[in-house]
């Protein structure tokens, strides 16, 4: 990865941005600038970017309001961000004015229709009573409220009123609201009104100019309703006409605004000094020549390009571009699920891929089940869906399971068909568990080594020498491991020297913080006094030693799952015995599917657990930034 600083004149900045956007190899970074420079051009360009973003949104709204699809619209070849805005704004304003006015008429018509329909229902209910609607509000002993409340609040309202006698009659429902009659005695009017108010009750009043008996009111309302329906039909015709007349132009302006918004936003983020712009970014080494060529061509050699070595720091991370061969890319996803590698950090994809496949196969070793998993992977790889991305992993895991199946001599759980090349897990329990732990110790040692390499590369000497995953930790781990093995094997060794080695490493880890500060020159050597630091470090050391044991023993699951797999397969075979031919094969088939589906999955989870917790925990931080080159169009459309 190389950092490039491109100095370009105002005259060329637009063309170069569009060209770089089309090239798509530059990961834009913030400009680190000297005095007199602005770290971002901002100003005019940011204003323009806001202007275009706002235009784009307004056009999108207009298109949606008119019911015009935005699918499959091409970006115009020529973008002219300095001129497009004025032209588009004027036109959009005209369209919006028409649309606002149309929408307001539609909203008003709909509101009127809704209200009229409610009053119609109210009048229908009251039509048998031969009194005027106004008189209902002036009863002597009864307090009556007529209006609407949100439908979902009706039950709650009835439950909320528990201190007074009341009646609530829902008479009509329209959309999300219910028309209700609510009544109580005059004495309790205040409580009812408060309860209704808190249930978002809206009193229903007669439209202006409508009065009389319910029948008279009804006749008047029906006429008004018909008029409103006519208005709404006319409004829909207007919409269709507007969409036909203006659709194509609106779509073209919308795409243009989108492109212009992107370009101006990018320029706004460049550094600037007077009329000179500074484009800062990261480019992969192999794309550097292409980038230089493009810049020279577009600016006719008038741009200056500075190429710098990457110097990562927490504040200014260097983006990481993973460059693994295609067959390792599915494993990159497992790595990035944990976290993307930092620029100066080891990419753990290759060791992860190797150990993942190896551990999976060891736990899932069976020729038949492995092949079945391989076939399932092959099937998923030909289909579209969420599991397609898992297909390569299934293929690798299935192949590994098959290979270990040969080593174990296991075919669908039967161990009497194929000879085992290595051992039969169920008959060699102790050896396979021992191998598992040994394999785990080897993987953890690899983790220690990768930590040392990583700390060396980033020159973190404190971590390299004194941390529990560093040299002191590694020596302590190997000493404990070696001592343990020697004791079990009955091999004699110099106990005093061994104890001294352990003690020395333990003390180094115990004092890792002050020692690290000492060797790296950071001061003060002690942050919070000897007492606090030592007590804290002691418990951390204790935890470290315990974790060495638990981390190693964690790998016992490699053997345990191999044994469980063989055991489970045999249980299925036993269950199938004594049944008729058809049932027997059905049990074997279902059993095989269960094993491949569920056990295969659990083994996958266990493998990931070993990778993430035991292996990655030793050396991998995963706080990196992925390389994402800027493009003219949003990433998903580019």
């Amino acid at each position: 990865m190389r950092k490039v600083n491109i100095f370009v004149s105002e005259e060329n900045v637009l063309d170069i941005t569009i060209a770089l956007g089309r090239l798509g190899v530059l990961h834009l970074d913030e400009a680190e600038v000297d005095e007199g420079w602005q770290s971002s051009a901002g100003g005019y360009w940011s204003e323009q970017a806001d202007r275009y973003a706002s235009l784009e949104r307004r056009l999108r709204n207009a298109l949606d309001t008119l019911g015009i699809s935005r699918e499959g619209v091409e970006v115009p070849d020529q973008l002219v961000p300095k001129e497009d805005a004025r032209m588009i704004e004027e036109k959009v304003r005209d369209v919006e004015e028409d649309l606002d006015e149309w929408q307001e008429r539609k909203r008003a018509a709909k509101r009127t229709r809704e209200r009229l329909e409610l009053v119609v229902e109210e009048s229908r209910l009251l039509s048998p009573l031969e009194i005027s609607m106004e008189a209902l509000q002036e009863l002597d002993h009864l307090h009556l409220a007529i209006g609407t409340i949100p439908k979902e609040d009706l039950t709650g309202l009835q439950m909320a009123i528990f201190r007074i006698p009341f009646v609530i009659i829902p008479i009509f429902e329209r959309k999300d609201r219910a028309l209700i009659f609510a009544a109580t005695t005059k004495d309790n009017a205040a409580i009812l009104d408060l309860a209704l108010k808190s249930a978002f009750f809206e009193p229903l009043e007669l439209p202006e100019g409508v009065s009389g008996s319910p029948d008279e009111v009804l006749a008047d309302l029906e006429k008004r309703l018909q008029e409103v329906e006519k208005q709404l039909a006319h409004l829909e015709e207007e919409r269709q006409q507007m969409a036909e007349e203006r659709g194509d132009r609106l779509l073209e302006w919308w795409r243009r605004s989108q492109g212009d918004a992107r370009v101006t936003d990018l320029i706004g983020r460049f550094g600037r000094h007077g009329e000179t712009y500074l484009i800062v970014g990261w480019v992969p080494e192999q794309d550097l020549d292409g980038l230089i060529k493009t810049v020279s061509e577009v600016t006719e050699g008038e741009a200056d390009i500075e190429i710098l070595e990457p110097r990562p720091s927490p504040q200014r991370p260097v983006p990481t571009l993973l460059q693994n061969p295609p067959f390792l890319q599915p494993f990159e996803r497992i790595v990035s699920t944990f976290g993307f590698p930092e620029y100066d950090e080891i990419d753990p994809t290759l060791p992860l891929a190797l150990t993942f496949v190896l551990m999976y196969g060891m736990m899932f070793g069976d020729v038949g089940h492995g092949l079945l998993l391989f076939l399932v992977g092959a099937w998923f790889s030909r289909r579209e869906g969420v599991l397609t991305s898992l297909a390569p992993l299934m293929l690798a895991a299935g192949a590994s399971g098959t290979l270990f199946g040969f080593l174990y001599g296991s075919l669908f759980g039967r161990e009497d068909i194929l000879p085992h090349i290595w051992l039969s897990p169920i008959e060699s329990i102790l050896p396979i568990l021992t191998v598992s732990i040994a394999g785990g110790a080897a993987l953890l040692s690899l983790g220690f080594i990768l930590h040392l390499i990583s700390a060396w590369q980033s020159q973190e000497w404190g971590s390299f020498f004194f941390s529990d995953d560093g040299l002191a930790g590694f020596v302590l781990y190997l000493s404990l491991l070696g001592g343990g093995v020697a004791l079990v094997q009955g091999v004699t060794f110099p106990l005093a020297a061994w104890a001294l080695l352990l003690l020395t490493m333990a003390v180094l880890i115990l004092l890792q913080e002050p020692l690290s500060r000492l060797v790296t020159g950071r001061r003060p050597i002690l942050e919070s006094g000897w007492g606090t630091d030592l007590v804290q470090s002691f418990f951390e050391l204790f935890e470290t030693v315990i974790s060495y044991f638990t981390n190693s023993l964690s790998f016992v699951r490699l053997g345990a799952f191999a044994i469980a797999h063989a055991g489970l397969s045999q249980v299925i075979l036993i269950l199938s015995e004594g049944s008729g031919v058809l049932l027997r094969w059905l049990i074997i088939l279902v059993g095989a599917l269960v094993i491949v589906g569920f056990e295969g999955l659990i083994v996958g989870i266990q493998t990931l657990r070993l990778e993430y917790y035991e292996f990655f925990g030793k050396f991998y931080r995963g706080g990196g930034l992925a390389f994402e080159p800027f493009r003219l169009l949003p990433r998903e459309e580019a």
Partner: protein
Amino acid sequence: MLGVLDVPRYAAVNARVRGRIGRLLPPARWRILLNASDSGEFLQYLSGTAYRPVLAAMVMERPDLGEIERRLWQHLAQAYRAPLPFMPGGSKDLLAWLWRRFEVNNLKTILRGVKGGAPPAQIRRTLVPLGSDSELPWKTLTDLASVPVVVERLEGSFYGSALEPGLERYRREELLFPLEIRLDLAYFRQLLRFVEALRGRDRKEAQRFTGVMVDSQNVSWAFRYRIYDDFSPEEILNYTLRKGVRADASVIRQIAAGASVLPTLQNVWGESLPGLRRLVGLPDKQALLEMERIFDRYFYNEATETLKGYSLHLGIVLAYVALQETEVKDLVSVLEGIAANWSPDRIHAYRIAG
């Protein structure tokens, strides 16, 4: 009951969640953060962690506290989205809806800003950045001139439908309360619907986390309306959820009728809540403040317990987001403690996970 196709999905979710749990701040980092001398140093230390992407754009020397806090909430919002692509149907809906809480809070901020006449740019600075995950036109909303126009602009969306019934009251009273409570009630009702739609273990787990969250919010509202707003029992019942997981209308009615905090919590949750004894003898106002910490601690404990067990269910995801939320709340406490020049020990005492 877990569907067969849900198993691989939960396996993928589990892998992703476990990976993200590994990126939570370790004790050593907390010690460093607690000892930061000022917010700049705090930010510097935090930038070396999983929070770096959200903090990257900030000024390190003299950072604005509010801005840091909003970035931390942004990190939390992203944590809610992270497991979504792999999750099965109902659980996915629930998690996506839990994430929408950030949209609800942003909308309330906009309503308050617009009503108070704050400049659009100032309102925008106070929103939690939700990026392209949110489909709401935040800039347009902050540019609008009045509260009714904001509500009308939301027409057709869930929020528009939730707010619309409160609009007439807003016009009459010019108070945001009717709108805000409509928004909250609609949000939590929908959340409960998503919980109810789940089956088997997923439903139990959702009730254990989300159900308790909704109930505690409902109980808290009821106490606040009675203690601080002096609302009538009918109003308290109407402004709360009538159906929760454990705290239903009968519990709210008891609160409205004068029940105290401690017996109410004991009645609803028994002894499953940690630290209830702290409430003994406290007046209701103080007990109400303490209640929030009790629930924070409950979620933290439940989350850590859940992660020790069986993995293929929604509980793992809810436990992860609960831990992430605890971490963000603790970071906010630490940040505010540092700003107030408190000692590390004093700040530490306010940590939920401390």
